[in-house]
């Protein structure tokens, strides 16, 4: 069932009442959804933890630079750290309280490396920072909307955490026509977007219209997987009488990936190595639209998000609205704790999320889920040799040959893998998921991408150090030259002085002689 059958598509199109049928997709897999675990209970607010750990790097790009010092009291929503560089995002206080420490803390990163983090002791009052709220956000200029989105620290909430304002500014410059809102949520277990759309559709639609206003996009499509009928109904009701079109798309992994969502809704393919903006499309996650609405209409920067806490090992899976910086352990505790020992802890979805070694890791803006999976839910089989069954080829949504790429990387030839299209791999993990030999294909690709980037960095470093070495040799040569010059000058001066002395002596002698003669 890799290809979506035509009649099915038409049925689907008829069901959601739209003229344009959906477009075909390549590859994809159908992992067990397990969304029922957490989809039913309404979103609860996480009881405020005593301490929050706010990392300075929660987004793709340069880390934010902190502006507060230890001991300072801050209000909720106050700017804690400013963005630096072109691609970056500021960080705001997730609650009111006192900054008790600034230092390195284990972060939600697969390396387990520590990252610069502010520790905030909550005072429990949740006093908001005074913000200026525009009377009518739609009266603001598109640039102003994008700038405010940036100032509110909003990043892509689907997982990649790319600064939203950077995308908005870029889209306006490249004259994006189509805005696609991604409500795919194709990762198993995750239901945070589902719940958000069911409960806060009105706000999402308003956020979508604000994003459209900021970019000038005229066509607005919201793609939601058809395994979320309640969310589709809620969004359609909220979008009635607006230009926003809500479209059901077939449930499959990785439908929620930007490139796949574009293809299924518009039939257009993002060119290899290119960006969505190149074909006039901008994609944002529905959660991001909600954050935009909160920022523009209520003056609230991004300081909390909806997180799915789920997995077979969680006592009572559900969705929590949690402040940024709460520990994964706080969330698990709020869901009744662990039922049994977890075989794997994941931040994000099971396919693309980050594996955690323990739960004492803070939540960041891009964290969509905290999963505690049992050994029955995770396969832990030793990889075997490739049997060239080509399952991975059929599964790959990008039309790549994972087995060929992995073979190149295995023998230490990542450049060879690039020839097979490594740069187009979106690291979705569909290939690893279907491989009967349990080969960690996507792990190979992640490794090779990092390896290539490291080589690139080394090349740049070599160029830089070479320049330094050249400058140094030049400087050394100059110093030698200057010394010689100085020595020569000294010698010349001495010679001149000697000559003068001599001349004086000669003159004196001559004078004496003259006197004698006289």
């Amino acid at each position: 069932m890799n290809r979506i059958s035509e009649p099915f598509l038409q049925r689907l199109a008829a069901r959601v009442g739209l003229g344009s049928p959906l477009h075909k997709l390549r590859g994809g897999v159908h992992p067990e959804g397990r969304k029922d675990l957490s989809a039913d209970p309404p979103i609860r607010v996480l009881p405020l933890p005593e301490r929050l750990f706010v990392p300075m790097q929660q987004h793709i790009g340069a880390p934010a630079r902190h502006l507060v010092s230890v001991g300072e009291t801050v209000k909720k929503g106050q700017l804690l750290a400013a963005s630096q560089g072109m691609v970056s995002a500021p960080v705001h206080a997730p609650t009111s309280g006192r900054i008790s420490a600034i230092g390195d803390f284990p972060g939600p990163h697969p390396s387990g490396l520590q990252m610069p983090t502010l520790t905030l002791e909550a005072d429990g009052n949740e006093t908001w920072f005074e913000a200026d709220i525009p009377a009518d956000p739609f009266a603001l200029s598109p640039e102003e909307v994008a700038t405010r989105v940036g100032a509110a620290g909003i990043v892509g909430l689907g997982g990649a955490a790319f600064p939203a304002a950077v995308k908005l500014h870029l889209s306006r410059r490249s004259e994006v026509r189509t805005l696609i809102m991604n409500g795919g949520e194709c990762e198993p277990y995750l239901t945070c977007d589902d719940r958000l759309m069911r409960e806060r559709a009105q706000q999402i639609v308003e956020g979508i219209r604000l994003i459209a206003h900021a970019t000038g996009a005229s066509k607005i499509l919201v793609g939601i997987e058809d395994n979320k009928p309640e969310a589709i109904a809620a969004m359609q009701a909220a979008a009635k009488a607006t230009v926003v079109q809500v479209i059901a798309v077939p449930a499959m992994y990785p439908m929620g990936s930007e490139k796949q969502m574009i293809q299924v809704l518009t039939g257009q393919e993002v060119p290899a190595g290119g960006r969505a903006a190149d074909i006039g499309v901008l994609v944002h996650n529905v959660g991001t639209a909600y954050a935009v609405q909160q920022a523009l209409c209520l003056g609230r920067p991004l300081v909390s998000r909806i997180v799915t806490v789920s997995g077979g090992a969680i006592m009572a899976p559900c969705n929590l609205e949690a402040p940024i910086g709460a520990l994964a352990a706080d969330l698990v505790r709020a869901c009744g704790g662990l039922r049994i020992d977890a075989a794997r802890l994941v931040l994000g979805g099971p396919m693309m999320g980050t594996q955690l070694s323990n739960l004492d890791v803070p939540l960041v803006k891009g964290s969509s889920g905290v999963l505690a999976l049992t050994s029955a839910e995770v396969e832990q089989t030793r990889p075997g040799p490739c049997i060239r069954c080509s399952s991975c080829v059929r599964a790959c949504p990008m039309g790549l040959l994972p087995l060929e790429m992995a073979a190149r990387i295995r023998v230490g030839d990542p450049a060879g893998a690039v020839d097979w299209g490594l740069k187009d791999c979106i690291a979705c993990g569909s290939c690893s998921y279907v491989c009967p030999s349990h080969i960690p294909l996507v792990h190979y690709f992640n490794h090779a991408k990092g390896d290539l980037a490291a080589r690139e960095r080394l090349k740049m470093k070599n160029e830089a150090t070479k320049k330094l070495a050249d400058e140094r040799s030049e400087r050394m040569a100059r110093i030698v030259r200057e010394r010689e010059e100085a020595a020569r000058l000294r010698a010349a001066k001495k010679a001149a002085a000697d000559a003068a002395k001599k001349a004086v002596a000669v003159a004196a002698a001559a004078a004496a002689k003259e006197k004698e003669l006289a």
Partner: protein
Amino acid sequence: MIAALLSLTLLGLALGLGLGYAAIRLKVEGNPLVEELEAMLPGSQCGQCGFPGCTGAAMALAEGSAPITLCPPGGRPLIEALAAKLGVEADISALADSGPQVAEVLEDLCIGCTKCYKVCPTDAIMGAAKQIHMVFREACTACGKCVDVCPTEATRMIPLPATLQTWYWSKPEVAA
């Protein structure tokens, strides 16, 4: 007056043209391969290859009298690049790849003698007399010269620590 101007201009032109022609006609050919190879080498002139500097190493490489594994600071990427350039097979297996390295100054041991500072070919060491010195990792080529000169063994080589910006997944274990 005009005659003087004219004759001087003409003279200048004639001499200039003559010189230009001679420069093209009588040019001493540098070996382009040596130049290209030199451009690939780290350029820190550290001498670890046993040649007086990167130019000497490039000349030996062009002649084929030196192995392409000669340059420790260049590491594996350089070997691979040289292998591709010179069309020879690299025997990397013999080379234990210790990964990228950098120098580090142990603060407790440094007496601030400035020896390392003076010898570093890329100005990667910062410090002044009687002060603890430190290494700029971005500029250090891991040539090891500072380790050789330090009187108190305060400098040493360590594997370049990974940062959030540089960390990446290790290679999966190969199937049994």
